[in-house]
């Protein structure tokens, strides 16, 4: 499994990770959210495929309330693509892999 390739992100580390040279896709999720669970294997897949090119990260919104609040997140899963610390684009809901690949490609 590519599980360990997904970066588990917290409020404290958030800024330094999304401002790094590599684009970052953050999956905002919670353990009680069914669709977040459904999308999980796809995130793991992407982490394997984009290793070294795009950081694929997950942030538990229960444990880290500050960052989701900052980005006005009121539904999960929400996936936000960051480049140089800026939001490039975002998707809400359990979407297919192709839509996530299209989102990631916007960082190019």
């Amino acid at each position, binding site marked *: 499994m590519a599980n360990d390739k997904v970066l588990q992100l917290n409020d404290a580390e958030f800024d330094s990770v999304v401002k790094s040279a590599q684009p970052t896709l953050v999956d905002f999720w*919670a353990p*009680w*959210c*069914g*669709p*977040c*669970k*459904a*999308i*999980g*294997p*796809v995130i793991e*897949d992407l982490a394997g495929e984009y290793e070294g090119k795009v950081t694929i990260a997950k942030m538990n919104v229960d444990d880290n309330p500050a960052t989701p609040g900052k980005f*006005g*997140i*009121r*539904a*999960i899963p*929400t996936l936000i693509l960051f480049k140089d610390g800026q939001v490039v684009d*975002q998707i*809400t*809901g*359990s979407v*297919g*892999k*192709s839509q996530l690949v299209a989102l990631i490609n916007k960082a190019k």
Partner: protein
Amino acid sequence: MKDHYELVILGGGPAGLSAGLYAARARLDHVMLEKGAPGGQVLLTDWVDNYPGFPEGLTGFDLVERMTQHAKRFDLNTELACVTEVDLSNVKRKVLRLEDGGTVTCDSLIICTGASANSLNVPGERELRGKGVSYCGTCDAPFYRNMHVAVVGGGNTAIQEAEYLTKFADKVTVIHRRDSLRATKIIQEIAFANKKIEFLWNKRVTSIEGQTGVERLQLVDNDGTPSVLDVQGVFVLIGVTPNNAGLPLQLLQADKWGFIPIDGESRTTVPGVMAAGDICSKDVRQIVNAAGEGAVAVLAAEKYLQSLK
């Protein structure tokens, strides 16, 4: 993943998992294809109180987990794959085209692609999705602590979710286009007794407004009188639309909404192709009949595969 299977089960909700259980026990050469983790719409359900065998009730999450474990115990074979097109033009060799460019062929197919939430199709809905517009109370209720939210709909899902939302929101206003609910009586009784739930009858939402998030809904009464409702969130729970993208609807003689008709053995109009669960053309969409149809579909698949030998 192999190139060919005797049986492909397309989708991993309760219908697909039940079909998977029966296929694995029948030792059929099978695979269940799912684009994410198994579960389907049940994952959106906070509490399941009407699935036989669980007298205390359980979460949708737990039920899926149990169904998955159950099928895996008999070596259900699953693959992560997104099917973009089902080609049934050659009945002897059914072809599934995958998002990654690959193909899988099979002798028999069970379609369990399910359904997804309908949209209101009103101005503001798309723009404010995830910013106050939600289709899953179970997922997003905790973001509405101490707020006022609206629920649109009058069926089981809408009323059950309204009840769930009162655990977080201060006030939940149910907006329904009729003057009575369609939800099961016991669900209605609980909702009517809940002081945090208010009902607006005979009204429809005409637009959703707000700058950075939902601020208000424009409503219209059935007699044409407009009104405004200030809310911070709106949960749209007005029935489902079939997940039928890439299916040959004409060949399967889909109904006018795009659901697929089946007979008493879960067979479609195409030999060797069965359907089960919410994708089927029917009045009742419950977990229990989805699971039933999944089991019946495998027995039909076995018969069909036998007939080829």
